[in-house]
């Protein structure tokens, strides 16, 4: 095999430059949205510092031997579970959720770290030779690995991060090659549960679909029956799960189902976000000239609603540019997944891709009113040190795998 010594062969510049551009756009947006908010005035500087640290971490991970990744899976997962337990006890409460651990002047979210840990551990489990996803037991083990951190995070409660974990779990099972029936078994309770939130008719329709699918696969009656029972149970228990959520998240979900019911209450953010983006027009109102942004009509616009700042001040052109950068990033990572040396690394890449993608999906989806308002940052763009750090670390892993893709094991 001919080894190219060109830089691009050792280092995926496309990925790195896309992300760099996203961070820079994010810095502009953070500056614009916080310059009038005294309490958040230092955010731009802090984000700049975080970026510097994150770059160091990225290059550090990039340079590590790739083979260290697999052995680190188990201890990393164990540590992250420990931290998730610790945060429930000593965590700091911000915005209704106990999701921050603080020591000294530094604070971070264990959930961010747990994302990477879960990817590594689940990939490790799924890439074992003896793992067989036609075996219900193995599916269950995979589910437990994925659902355990979700359960802990739901207790904080942090709905947005939970979605990311569900995404990781489904994506990795899928990438490992779960059968369509297996996927249906894993997915259906969730779909039934969500459907039941909208009302009994939706619930009945969803259960009907499950029955049709079960008939289609013609599995034995015991298995089919228990799966159906699980589905119906999940629909009925969704109320209990709903009640675990904090009140602000409950109202946000209700507001999504009918956003105009309470325009000044929980639907306010969703409406103002859309107004900001829509009023940006084709070219935008210009940097620092967005009324909605500068006059603080949208709360948390430097984190969860940062896309509104971009949409309003840089218009359709700016929004499109950001989305294209993400598209380049996603497709580039996906391409790498099939070049990866082994199944473990391939799964890790898909896991990381899922983290980035679900964040992108939920964050922009909520800003443009397609998805409910769920607090989740836009990767590389939103303000937030621990989020940026962990994303850059994950990007470091991607670049690391890219670097070593042609090395022999």
């Amino acid at each position, binding site marked *: 095999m001919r080894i190219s010594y060109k830089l691009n062969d050792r280092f995926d510049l496309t990925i790195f430059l896309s992300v760099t551009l996203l961070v820079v756009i994010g810095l502009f947006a953070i500056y614009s949205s916080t310059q*009038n908010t005294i309490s958040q005035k230092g955010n731009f500087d802090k984000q700049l510092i975080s970026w510097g640290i994150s770059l160091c971490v990225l290059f550090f991970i990039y340079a590590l031997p790739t083979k260290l990744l697999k052995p680190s899976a188990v201890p990393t997962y164990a540590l992250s579970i420990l931290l998730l337990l610790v945060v429930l006890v000593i965590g700091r409460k911000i915005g209704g959720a106990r999701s921050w651990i603080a020591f000294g002047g530094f604070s971070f979210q264990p959930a961010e770290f747990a994302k990477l840990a879960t990817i590594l551990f689940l990939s490790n489990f799924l890439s074992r030779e003896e793992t067989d996803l*036609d075996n219900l037991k193995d599916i269950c083990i995979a589910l437990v690995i994925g659902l355990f951190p979700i359960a802990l995070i739901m207790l904080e409660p942090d709905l947005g991060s939970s979605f990311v974990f569900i995404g990781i779990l489904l*994506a990795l099972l*899928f*990438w490992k*090659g779960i*059968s*369509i*029936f*297996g996927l249906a078994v894993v997915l259906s309770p969730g779909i039934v549960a969500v459907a039941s939130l909208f009302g009994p008719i939706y619930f009945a329709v969803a259960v009907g679909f499950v029955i049709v699918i079960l008939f289609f*696969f013609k599995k034995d009656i015991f298995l089919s029956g228990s799966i159906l029972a699980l589905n119906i149970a999940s629909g009925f228990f969704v109320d209990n799960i709903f009640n675990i959520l904090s009140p602000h998240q409950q109202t946000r979900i209700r507001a999504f189902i009918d956003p105009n019911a309470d325009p000044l209450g929980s639907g306010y953010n969703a409406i*103002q976000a*859309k*107004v*900001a*983006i*829509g*009023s*940006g*027009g*084709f070219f935008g109102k210009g940097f620092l000239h967005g*009324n*909605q942004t500068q*006059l*603080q*009509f949208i709360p948390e616009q430097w984190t969860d609603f940062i896309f509104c700042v971009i*949409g*309003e001040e840089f*218009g*359709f052109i700016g*929004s*499109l540019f950001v*989305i294209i950068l*993400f*598209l380049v990033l*996603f*497709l580039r990572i*996906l391409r790498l*997944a*099939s070049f990866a040396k082994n199944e473990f690394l391939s799964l890790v890449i*898909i896991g990381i*891709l899922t983290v980035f*993608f679900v964040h*992108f*999906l939920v964050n*922009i*989806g909520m800003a*443009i009113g*397609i998805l409910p308002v769920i607090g989740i940052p836009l990767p590389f763009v939103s303000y937030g040190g621990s989020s940026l750090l962990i994303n850059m670390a994950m990007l470091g892993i991607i670049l690391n795998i890219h670097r070593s893709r042609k090395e022999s094991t």
Partner: protein
Amino acid sequence: MSAKISLFDRKKIIYGIIIAVVSIYIFKLFEMQILAHAQFDAKASDNSIKAIEQIALRGVFYDRNMKLLVENTPAYTVRITPAEYDTSLNSKLETILDLENGFIKNMLFKNRTYSKFIPLRVKRGADFSAIAWIEENREHLFGVDYVIEMQRGYPNGAMGSHVFGYSKEISPQQLKKEEQYYQPGDLIGSIGLEKKYEKDLRGEKGYNYILVDSRRREVGKYKNGVNDLPSQKGKDLVLSIDGELQKIAEQELNGRAGAVAAIEPSTGEVMVLASSPQFDLNQFSYFTPKDYLRQLLNDPLKPQFNRASMAAHPPGSTFKLLCAIAALDLGVITPSTTLYCGGSFTYGRSFKCHGSHGSLNVIQAIEKSCNVFFYQLIFKIGLDRLKDYATRFGFGKKLGIDINEEVRGLIPNSAYYEKIYGKNWPHGILPSLGIGQGEVNVTPLQLANYCALIANNGKSFVPHLVRGYLDENKKFHSYKYKEVNVGINQSVFDIVKEGMYRVVNGAGTATNIRINDIHIAGKTGTAQNPQGKDHALFVAFAPYENPTIAVAVLIENAGFGATWAAPIAKKIIETYVRRSMPKTAATSDKNKIEVKQGAEPFAD
């Protein structure tokens, strides 16, 4: 074995999901930012750009000689911004601003649903001493400030309270009807000309566009004010009122209950419309103290009642002119017809006269105000025909003057009595009606209008208070008013006017007001008042030869018209007519000769 998806297909599926999501998002952004951009932009502007109303300067009132009657004067308005205000200051501020205890708390409560950053008016027209105190204690008074706003001022000294009227804060009911122009807290004309000409006076509101943040706090001007729309001043009205005469009338009426109305006969322009007692318009210029309102409401003379156009009393002997006109016009008497007065008239019972006048014709009957003559006359005219004439002269109906405070009065006809007494109503009521007593009510304004019509031989215009308005360039535009013509022969007026001339200048009932060089023609009246002392009435016009003013005076509970009402009419007439005489010639021989010539036919 269930279906497995190959690695290649799995990659394609993930690829598909990514492309699908990105496509949906791009499509949605295209829809929001390009297709629906205008809607969202409008919403964003609505969010953050606030139009601050600029109340237009209200039009002022000039009198007929272009003297300022009602003007705008700057006054201090003290305001509170609830978000910054500390309610522990309440009692202190209330004392300084002379407000009732608990006023501020109440006001803050009433406005609790509005933004806390919008200043609320606590006191309009605050004293300078209060402003000085606020200025001194500025650093302790967070959320308290003052601005200069315009309020009404009355520089002429003529009160004209009932005519000019005042504005009040708009009521919720009015707001419902007029919500396209007014906002809560706006002032709107409440009575008098301020009400009637509200649409002319108010002008056009202007708008300043400012930026507000999500908490409705003002951040600055929108685009440095290029879109601001300046307010347009209201129209300045030129009244037909004569400020000087109005002032004299008000001074003469002072301390009495009564009214004066004066009209220019050829135009129907009302030169005086005074009602007494008055009220202080200054107290109404923005905020009316409750004490003052209570005092007005408890006053038995009801100062807010516009007697000039609303006090309907029997016209007394002034009504005799109408009877004479009707009888002459109908031909039931001729100028030479004489009727006998033996001191009383019997119709069921005895109706008295104030003397025994012997045989007299209609001119003499007016001169002497002989009751017996007119007791007989009404039977010749007939009640329903009399009502027809009365209506032509503006009695028993609203004249349509340009203020809303006006009543019909009452002129009965046979249908009216049939309704009360049945078919066989007692005709013994009639003799009293012939001399303007009993169930007949007229207002001083109606009397003045009637007198003006006589003076101008049955032709005039609907009486009105506003001649026209001045535009931005101070150019005068006149309003048009409907012409009135009673359709009665000139010869009839000549007879009646001669009688009126003799009332003052002959051996009549008002010779006490005779002036050598100005010939006043008039008619006294004393309206019987079952509740107390009689009301004194007097109608007159002058100069007799070429009338330029017609006056009606009512003094309630005073007594004889000649004694109490006529001198006031004289003073007004004399002032007005003398003013219009050439000054240098006022006492010249030539003038005297002219007057004498005019007086000749009635020399003896």
